[in-house]
């Protein structure tokens, strides 16, 4: 097809509405966040520039702790998603009766409104009457009721488990597609040579899945780093800050305390980390595409 001048105009004309929309709703707010982070914006009408003061204010021991917590929380969540997702994908790939139904049954956590799934977890974590505490007592693993969301340590892990629960279906289905795109001849050749099932998994499935695992862990890292709903609904960052990640911290500063300037400074720090992840992700996918 001749790509002449009118084609050029036509192509860009098709793109302009989407570009404009994203510019106004995403790009401009992004720039505005940077600008506001140098101001004392709040509910008041006047907005003054305060230089680096917001950044000086937020960089203390507490904020460092929040950053470290965000990274450990994200790390454990992504790690568990990848492990459970691989486990699920390998099992669902087995040619056993009922596999189509099983694949379908992994999807609900992903498809239903996130908040509603989280409400259900909220009940399960309930100390007096919830299922987890109840079953643990029934089997004699704990003596009394455990209110999972009332203590820092258990709340931290409870929010991770719920985040993993929501993330696993997508990871599983994606890994399953990756496994199914591996040529069958490889398995048949290995089988003819007498390789055991475990050997075939170690030497064929896992290496050929590796690009999918890398891609997915990067995407998952970015999504998990941005996770808001789960922690906000279950604990609002509590008890005493033990589940406060950077997103939660920014939200409570900006929307809760109405300190827009300071909140924007916190958001900028998140943006810097996200940009790093973004660059890493694009580089990695390019490397994978070339390999």
């Amino acid at each position: 097809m001749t790509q002449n001048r009118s084609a050029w105009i036509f192509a860009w004309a098709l793109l302009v509405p989407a570009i404009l929309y994203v510019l106004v709703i995403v790009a401009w707010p992004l720039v505005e966040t940077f600008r506001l982070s140098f101001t004392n914006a709040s509910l008041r009408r006047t907005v003054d520039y305060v230089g680096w003061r917001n950044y000086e204010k937020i960089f203390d021991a507490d904020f460092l702790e929040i950053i470290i917590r965000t990274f450990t929380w994200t790390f454990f969540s992504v790690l568990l998603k990848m492990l459970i997702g691989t486990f699920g994908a390998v099992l669902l790939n087995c040619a056993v009766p009922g596999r189509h139904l099983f694949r379908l049954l992994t999807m609900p956590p992903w498809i239903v409104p996130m908040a509603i799934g989280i409400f259900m977890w909220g009940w399960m974590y309930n100390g007096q009457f919830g299922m987890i505490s109840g079953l643990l007592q029934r089997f004699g693993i704990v003596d009394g009721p455990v209110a999972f969301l009332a203590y820092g340590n258990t709340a931290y892990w409870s929010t991770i488990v719920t985040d993993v629960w929501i993330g696993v279906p997508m990871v599983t289905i994606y890994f399953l597609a990756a496994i199914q795109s591996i040529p069958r001849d490889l398995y048949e050749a290995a089988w003819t040579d007498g390789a055991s099932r475990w050997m075939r998994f170690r030497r064929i499935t896992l290496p050929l899945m590796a690009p999918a695992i890398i891609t997915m862990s990067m995407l998952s890292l970015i999504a998990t780093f941005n996770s808001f709903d789960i922690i906000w609904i279950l604990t609002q960052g509590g008890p005493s800050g033990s589940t406060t990640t950077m997103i939660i911290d920014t939200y409570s500063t900006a929307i809760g305390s109405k300190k827009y300037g300071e909140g924007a400074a916190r958001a900028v720090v998140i943006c810097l980390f996200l940009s790093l992840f973004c660059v890493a992700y694009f580089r990695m996918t390019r490397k994978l595409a070339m390999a």
Partner: protein
Amino acid sequence: MAKIFKINKTSTMIDRYSWYELIGIYAGIALFLFFMLAPFIEGFLVSLKPLSQLFSSPYSFWPENGSFRAYWTMWESVPQFGWYIFNSLLISTVATLIVLVLVVPAAYAFARFKFKGMALVLGAFLAVSMFSGAVLLIPLFRLMRTLGLLNTYFAMIVPGAAFLIPSAIWLLRTYMMRIPIELNEAAYMDGASQFYTFRRVILPIARPGIIVVAIMTFIGAYAQQFIFALTFNSKTEYMPLPVGLYAYFGKQEVIWNELMAASFVGIAPALVIIFFLQRYLVGGLTAGAIKQ
């Protein structure tokens, strides 16, 4: 013939499991699915239990004297429930329409034309999905306030739609790239304009892909209404389901069986979609996830 037979034999032999392997596989799948479905099973059983049984120790898994009463009484305890569902559906529908109007032309442009700068724009679109709404909340909040859109449907629809655009573009672009370019060439030979080709040749062929994208976007919009609705709207009559129920969740005296009953009614549309459109879903979901 003999060769085909041999391959088939190998294919079936390789999939034959010994009895202990079968037990292992089914046990593993059971464990995995239990984790995925436990909250739903528990939530459903809770919705059947009378309150007196819910708040009693020791914990009992099965409902005694279970009934569907909560499914009737919830309509009185949550008087706005019907509105919440309506709002959720309305917000998702309008967001989906906005996304389609923007994404269908854009995806076609990305799939068919390779002009300088377009790869960069595509990369920028994908980068959008990396930033969540939470990060941009402050300027968006000020923008909505300035435009006087706080406490309206628009405040929940407009920002939400932006974050659904990247994966929709990606999914539809992948689909449209499979449409043979010869169709464009033939239309060009016949003297059709670019717009006519797009409108009369490409769009009808791309319809199945557009439907998949519409379903995926709708599900995304239905599943993720929380942060914007929580922050930009405080009017009960405009609240979508998740935020409407969240208000009850936050109360001291949570009527759990009714909350769970309401949740189940609220997720019913999503579950219906899963069962009827599963064929499209798996392809759509995985293609949407591959962003490279």
